[in-house]
Every structure is written in C-alpha cells, then in structure tokens.
C-alpha cells in the first residue's frame, strides 16, 4: 500500500514538538485539591503541610488549558497541518506512560521539552485510518529531571463520514389540505375559493370563514406578492436549518397571505413591502416548497 503521507510524516521523528515550555502555574495546592476532588482521591499525602502533588498530575502541569499551548515548535504544527490536510482531522489519546523521579511540591516551577519520538505507518482502526504519533516529554524543575511522560495519540480520518444534515421537515398533509400540496408538487400555488361567496382562503380550510359554506374550488396564484411581515430566526437552531434565516409572511396579489422563505437576499436585507415573486424550490428528491424571490429590480 502506497503511503506517501507516512513517508512525509516520518521526517518529523526526532524533532522537537515543544521548545522548553513553561508550566502555566507553579505546582499549587488549589489545583491539587481540584484534581483530588474530581478523582475522589482522599490520600492525605496530597493535603496539609508537606503535601505533594498526585504524581499522575504530571501532564496537567504542562497543559496549555483554554488559552492554548505556547512554545509549540514548527515541526509539531507542520506535522499536524499535513495530517489535517489529508483528512486526519480527529485525534484520540491511546497511551500514556509516565515515570516519576521525584514528587512535585507546591512552589515547583516546571519546564518541559517534548520530542516527536515516532510516527507509525498508516493504520486502520475501528475509529478510522490514521497515524499513531508518540511524543516524549521531559519535565524538569530547574535543571532537575522530575518526570518523563510518553504520550501516544491516533490522528485519524473518521471511519464514518460526516453525517448529512437532517432532511427538512415534511409538511403535514391531510384530507383538508391535500389539494394544496398536490398543486405545489406540480409547481402551482392554489388558493381555495368559496363557491358560495367567492371569498379566497389560504391556508386551506374545510369551510369558508366568511359564509360558512363547505364547497370550494381553486384559483391559481399569479405569483406576485410583497413581504407583509417577517422574523429572523437566530435561536434555537433546528437541525435541518442553518440560522440565522428570515421567515416571512407574504401577501399575495390576490390578498391572501402565506408563510414562506424569502430567497435571493441575505436574511438581514429582507424588508416589509419588498416585492417578491413565487418560485418553487426542490429541497430533496421528495420535497418541493413554494418560496419567494425578491424581484430583481429591488434586489440588494
């Protein structure tokens, strides 16, 4: 199997990943206490006068924290950039080997040097395909080596490709509005019309709001309309949608109104009274929806 990337990564073996990093904080009792609380560790060696830090905290003293790492060497960044570019964007720690030469005590100021010890050939794991990278960090207080920390991560391309965004929700089609959706499927926006009093209605309803008449026929909307009102959705995000986006109440030329999306302008350029024209948009193999495009003469 050709592994050109693996060969390029091999070059980084033996190179420094960190050039004398400095612990963000000296070894201190509050961080020790927080650690012990989290771990449920009640060992009296970690409290009181003469307290030592739990030896397994070794790596914690070298962590960049929320502010990130300082002093990372170019070799580290280059190697990770190569992997990211090759799709190996995920990372998981697999091994940690620590040796403790003497306990760390409050007040100790640690420095550390990390070297890229080895890079594996390309490996396929349950998580995905990638490379194991092993680093070794020597931790010192002053000139004294106090511990070593060997760390192995798998930097990999996830086996499962990123999930497709969920499909847009389906309209609820029932006996009373089925004709409307049949029209939409044929790219026609049908308005109900009472056969008794000729009142138009949208959305579709079983009876006339004006005269109570149960009988109706349809007229096809011309497609001309204006923005009657709108809101911009920022929160909460809904999986099928990508906020922010504008939801508009469109007044059709026939005088009835419909809730829809305005397309052709950014969400923050939608305005009341903006002239719009109907079009039909396919969202996937099954779903067609009426949307309203800002008329070109006013497009911003």
């Amino acid at each position: 199997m050709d592994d050109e990337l693996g060969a390029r990564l091999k070059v980084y073996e033996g190179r420094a990943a960190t050039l004398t990093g400095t612990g963000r904080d000296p070894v201190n009792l509050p961080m020790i206490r927080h650690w012990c609380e989290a771990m449920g560790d009640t060992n009296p060696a970690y409290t009181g006068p003469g307290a030592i830090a739990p030896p397994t905290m070794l790596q914690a003293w070298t962590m960049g924290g929320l502010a990130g790492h300082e002093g990372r060497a170019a070799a580290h960044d280059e190697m990770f950039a190569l992997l990211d570019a090759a799709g190996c964007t995920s990372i998981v720690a697999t091994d940690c080997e620590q040796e403790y030469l003497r306990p760390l005590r409050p007040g100790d100021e640690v420095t550390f040097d990390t070297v890229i010890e080895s890079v594996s050939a390309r490996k396929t794991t349950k998580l995905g395909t990638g490379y194991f990278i092993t680093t070794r960090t020597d931790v010192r207080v002053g000139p004294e080596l106090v511990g070593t920390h060997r760390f192995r991560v798998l930097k990999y391309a996830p086996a499962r490709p990123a999930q497709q965004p969920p499909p847009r929700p389906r309209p609820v089609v029932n006996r009373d509005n089925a004709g409307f959706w049949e029209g939409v499927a044929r790219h026609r926006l049908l308005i109900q019309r009472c056969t008794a009093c000729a009142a138009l209605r949208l959305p579709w309803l079983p009876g006339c709001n004006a005269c109570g008449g149960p009988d109706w026929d349809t007229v096809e909307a011309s497609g001309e309309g204006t923005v009657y009102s709108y809101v911009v959705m920022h929160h909460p995000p809904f999986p099928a949608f990508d906020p922010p986006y504008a939801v508009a109440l469109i007044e059709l030329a026939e005088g009835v109104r419909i809730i829809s999306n305005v397309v052709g302008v950014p969400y923050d350029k939608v305005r009341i009274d903006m002239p719009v024209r109907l079009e039909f948009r396919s969202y996937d193999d099954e779903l067609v929806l009426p949307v309203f495009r800002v008329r070109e003469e006013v497009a911003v």
Partner: protein
Amino acid sequence: MRAGEELPPLEIPITRTLIVAGAIASRDYQDVHHDAELARQKGSPDIFMNILTTNGLVGRYITDHFGPAAVLRKVAIRLGAPNHPGDTMVLTGTIEEVDGDTATVRVVGANGLGSHVTGTVTVTVPSDTVLSGGA
C-alpha cells in the same frame, strides 16, 4: 505484598460530572470531554473521559490500596473502550512482580463496552508500612 495477590476491585460510576470535572481539573478543554453535541458531530455517541482522568483514577486505585506512604514510580496505561456517562468502570489489579519493596501491578478497568484501560503501575511501599499496614 506478593506476586499473584489480587487487589480488591474499585467501582467507579462514570457520571457526566466526573468526566467534566476530571477534564477541567486536568486542564483539558477538548470539546469531546464536555460538549455532547460536538462529541456527536465527531462520531461519538456522547462525551467521554479524557486519558488524564483515567490516569488519575488508576493512580488513586493503587494508592488507595497501598496507603499514603506508597510512592508511585511509573504508570503506563493504554485506552480501549471509551468511558461514557452512565457507565460504571470496575478497576481490578493483580500484583505481577515484587522486587524488595517495589511491586508491579497489572491494572484493568472494565466498563459496559469492554476494557476501558489496561496498564501497569510500579509502586514502592516502604517495608515498615507494609508490616504495620498489613496491606
């Protein structure tokens, strides 16, 4: 302290709080250890425990057993099945080798998915405490 001796198991409920508290106490702010939504986007069903917390728990397991005078020399662990919230990890240990006052203990942490951690801890237990503590 003799080779073949088994340590009593330690059962650790894997709560969301433990995972987040361990990540923050170890200054590990990777989103997969505190943000379930982002963890799912990366293909994980939920947040999962970071390796530093597992390391800390393994160290605690050993010193809980051998007492406050025990000195950890080496902890080497390898991770397998992730620790997700709602699971329970049971740590077990077997003394593999004893050399004077220093023991090598094989540790396994099993959860509902399988083996979360396997590793080896080298610990020195000063002999006077072995006698008085009877550990």
